């Protein structure tokens, strides 16, 4: 984290949301607490059904928490109707008003806020310029393309200058090229407006490239919150490590502890240092993770692990080595291909695996 102290824009405190009752009770959110800072690009990342939309709907006011509270700039808004919150939403299907023009759509929120005609006209003009849609101001929303509708939906939600903008998988309906363009566009808009964005996606790459911070969700819980680098390099839960990128899982024993690091003994008997997640309970048996690109091949007998190359897959920028470990299990390495490099190793060859210092992370469970 950058260390600067920012104000909290939205805060959820012990929020639970339960749908239905009795045997078909669904716990869509389970005791979720999270603080989203001012002027932050914050992403909710998780698989389908984990409760991302539910959390957004609670912040927008389309639904209310079963337990806990939601605060906006310090004020409890848990039961405030949506039209009384300074929060706007970009809907997945855009939800543009089909009986209004592009400009009328963008001006709708301002009009409802009771702004003067002149102010509405000026702001709509600015917004059209911001999303580069000036030429299509008087078109019907049915007469513009999907990407253009997306921009109008963004402009409409940004025009009233909300404290927080919610975006529920806004890019999922776009094709690959357009999605890449819009990712850049969204970052630019967030930067230029300084509005807090809460962005929902189940695409890990999108989350890693766009966010200031990410909250990884699973089954109604937030498992970990952190910068993309934190989440990728220091996953604290098995689910997070598994959901984002490729990971090697190793079983190990704790041999000693020193602050935020632990000495752990691997199955091979080798002792190495590994980072501990914050607030972890004492345990003897732990799982540690290491990313495939944070280890290198070494001559047999050297490094922390020993094994035999099972197969080699060439990927252009890098090569993946799958190594059968002598102690059982498999380990994957991803090594960058140098220009003009030859295959240095062959399948079936015995090798050692050397970890980069500080590459190991202990999981909480």
């Amino acid at each position, binding site marked *: 984290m950058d260390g600067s102290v920012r104000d909290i824009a939205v805060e959820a405190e012990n929020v639970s949301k339960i749908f239905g009752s009795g045997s078909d009770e669904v716990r869509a959110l389970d005791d979720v607490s999270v603080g989203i800072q001012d002027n932050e690009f914050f992403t909710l990342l998780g698989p389908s059904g984990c409760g991302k939309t539910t959390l957004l709907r609670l912040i927008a006011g389309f639904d209310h928490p079963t337990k806990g509270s939601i605060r906006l700039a310090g004020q409890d808004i848990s039961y405030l109707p*949506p039209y009384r919150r300074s929060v706007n*939403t970009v809907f997945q299907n855009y*939800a543009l008003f089909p009986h209004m023009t592009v400009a009328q759509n963008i001006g*709708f*929120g301002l009009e*409802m806020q009771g702004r003067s005609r002149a102010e509405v006209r000026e702001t709509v003009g600015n917004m059209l310029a911001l999303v580069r849609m000036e030429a299509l101001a008087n078109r019907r929303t049915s007469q513009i393309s999907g990407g253009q509708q997306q921009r109008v939906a963004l402009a409409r939600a940004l025009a009233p200058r909300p404290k927080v903008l919610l975006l529920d998988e806004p890019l999922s309906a776009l094709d690959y090229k357009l999605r890449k363009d819009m990712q850049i566009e969204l970052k630019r808009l967030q930067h230029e407006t300084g509005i807090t964005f809460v962005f929902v996606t189940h695409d890990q790459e999108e989350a890693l490239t766009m966010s200031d911070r990410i909250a990884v969700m699973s089954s109604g819980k937030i498992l970990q919150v952190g910068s993309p680098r934190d989440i990728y390099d220091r996953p604290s839960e098995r689910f997070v490590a598994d959901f984002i990128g490729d990971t090697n899982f190793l079983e190990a024993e704790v041999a000693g502890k020193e602050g935020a690091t632990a000495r752990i003994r691997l199955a091979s008997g080798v002792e190495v240092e590994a980072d501990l997640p914050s607030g972890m309970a004492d345990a003897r048996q732990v799982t540690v993770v290491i990313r495939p690109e944070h280890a290198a091949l070494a001559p047999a007998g050297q490094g922390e692990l020993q094994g035999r190359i099972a197969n080699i897959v060439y990927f252009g920028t890098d090569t993946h080595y799958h190594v059968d470990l002598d102690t059982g299990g498999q380990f994957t390495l991803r090594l960058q291909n140098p220009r003009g490099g030859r295959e240095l190793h062959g399948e079936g060859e015995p090798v050692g695996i050397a970890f980069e210092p500080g590459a190991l992370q202990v999981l909480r469970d």
Partner: protein
Amino acid sequence: MKRQAGFTTVAIICFVCLYAPIVVLVAYSFNAGESIAVWQGFSWRWYAAAWENEEVQRAAWLSVLVAVQASFYATVVATMAALATTRNKAFRGQTAVFALINQPLMVPEIVTGVALLIVFAMVKVATGYNGLGYLVLAHTAFCIPFAYLPIRARLEGMDLTLETAAADLYATPWKTFRRVTLPLMWPGILAGAMLAFVISLDDVVITELVKGPGQDTLPTYMLGQLRRVVTPEINAISSALLAVSVVIVSLFFLLNRKRG
């Protein structure tokens, strides 16, 4: 696909049976003679006669008066009913509500007519009121399902997130209704009103039973005339009524098509 020869034949026979009498009726409305069966040359005289006939004028005016009011009230009720049945989550007794709204489609018209006749007779005795209200009320009742169906269809096709989006953009529930829901359901409301208008305009059975003295609508007036001397004037009135219905129903279909 193979054409079913037998089916086509049957369809043609049906259409002939259905439309041939109407063609004959319209043709003889232009008869120059007094007969509705012997052609004696072309003339507009019966249209002129009908146009100048004060009884026809009065009945036509009454028909329009009743149809305008009944279709208005029916459309208002149908709009509220459609909103209640599509905008809320499924509630207990929803099927019963559907059945109630669509009741006039199921109960034989003559039964409704007799029932209304009896009840209105009681009310008349109790209140002494003898005006047009009974007819308007009766027409409103049987027009509601016709107004309801297109409005409901329109609402069901409407994206609910549009209303959520309006609320998100600071529109109060009333503003959301005024600025988003109502404009979007407007074609459905217009279509419902037109259908109700035509249904009211064409009604005979219930009107015949409910109408008070001197409250003939065009259809009941025509029915009365048929019992006396029949001249092509009746053909002319029928043709005019037919033309009005066809125009309105065509508009209705046009409106329905535009929404797609």
